């Protein structure tokens, strides 16, 4: 049931939300003339909590992590990865096409689901380093965050403080979302159904990932640029 709900959310979300900083927030961002720490914290957290692509990837990452120590280790790598590219992207003025970056983020969801299905060992006889994968995909997720902010002519005044605030907000939002996901997973794991449905669930996560790839590539080729 939970899996079905997630699939529906994955399928419908791209239609509901353009996945960027929404209109009125964008107006606020462009009007900024200096530091706005709390609003940027809030927007970072909001972006993460409502960013289904990041969430779907996180679900995949912690799906088979049973020990808190492992959860912390993997999430820290993800955080390290996306913080590097968020800060470097915006402050260094590195521009990437947001559709292509978001398509790669969608692919990261597919990759993680395939890994959770044990696809790499079964098909290719080896398991690529899972920590390295989380770090590398974390870098792309950070670029995704950066492109959203770069869509706006942000004032140079207080830029560093604002970007760092946004980044910290992203981590707060990630912490909140992770807590909710972990509670849900913990509850699910107490049921026998977890093992029976785990494979199918990852299949649905993978479907969501493919959907994100398709949606973003469609935007790249068909969107009004």
């Amino acid at each position, binding site marked *: 049931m939970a899996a079905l709900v997630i699939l529906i959310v994955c399928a419908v979300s791209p239609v509901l939300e353009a996945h960027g900083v929404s209109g009125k927030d964008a107006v606020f961002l462009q009007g900024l003339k200096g530091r706005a720490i709390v609003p940027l914290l809030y927007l970072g957290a909001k972006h993460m909590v409502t960013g289904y692509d990041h969430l779907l990837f996180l679900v995949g990452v912690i799906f088979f992590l049973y020990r808190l120590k492992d959860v912390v280790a993997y999430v820290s790598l993800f955080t390290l990865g996306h913080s590097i590219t968020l800060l470097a992207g915006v402050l260094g003025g590195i521009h990437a096409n947001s559709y292509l970056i978001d398509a790669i983020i969608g692919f990261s969801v597919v990759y993680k689901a395939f890994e959770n299905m044990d696809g790499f060992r079964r098909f290719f006889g080896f398991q690529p380093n899972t920590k390295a994968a989380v770090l590398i995909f974390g870098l792309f997720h950070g670029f995704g965050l950066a492109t959203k902010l770069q869509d706006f002519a942000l004032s140079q005044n207080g830029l560093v403080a604002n970007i760092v605030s946004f980044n910290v907000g992203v981590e707060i939002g990630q912490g909140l979302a992770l807590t909710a996901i972990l509670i849900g997973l913990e509850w699910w794991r107490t049921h026998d159904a977890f093992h029976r449905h785990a494979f199918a669930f990852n299949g649905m996560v993978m479907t969501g990932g*493919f959907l994100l790839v398709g949606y973003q590539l469609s935007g790249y080729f068909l969107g*009004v640029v």
Partner: protein
Amino acid sequence: MESAPAAPASEVRQRIAVALGAAILVAGLVLVMFILPAEFAVDPLGTGAKLGLLPLGEVGQQVDALNQQASEAAKAGGTGAIVATQEKPFQQESVDFKLAPHEGMEYKYRLDKGEALLYAWNASGPVNYEFHAEPDGAPAGYAQTYEKKTAQLQATGTLTAPFPGIHGWYWENTTDKEVTVTLKSAGFYNLAHEFRNGQPTKNKMFQ
């Protein structure tokens, strides 16, 4: 990773392959049947039209295009609507020019960059004309053409000067009879020049 009960390797592989294929198929169908028509007004299977999703995509694309235009206009300096307040006095005039058979003449207003001119002229007989400007500081004889037509009886429109300079018309009477060109204009000009045979013949000041 998954602690599934031991199953033959081939069976596990098959299961993963089926899941992978199903994931691609479902994602592809959802994309083509629903998302493409609703988001991008692309409807390869006709499902968007049947379900009424297509108008959603069409309106969305239109709105995106309009927003895009507006944001480009805003980047170019403005809000899309061009409002330029003026402190110079408002001027309007209606002037007649007589062109002898096969004679040509020019009449140009001095406008700064961004200043607008509203104009309408008509001729009693067909004239060739060139609407053009000479930018300040350009070499003598250099002109930028806005519009050039033959055998016309009238033209109307607005001009927003792209650079400071003198902006106006060259009219040429191609007939064997005298032609009168009547120009009406409004703007914030304070100086106009009349040229005959390429030489300035009259300067007109506006107060």
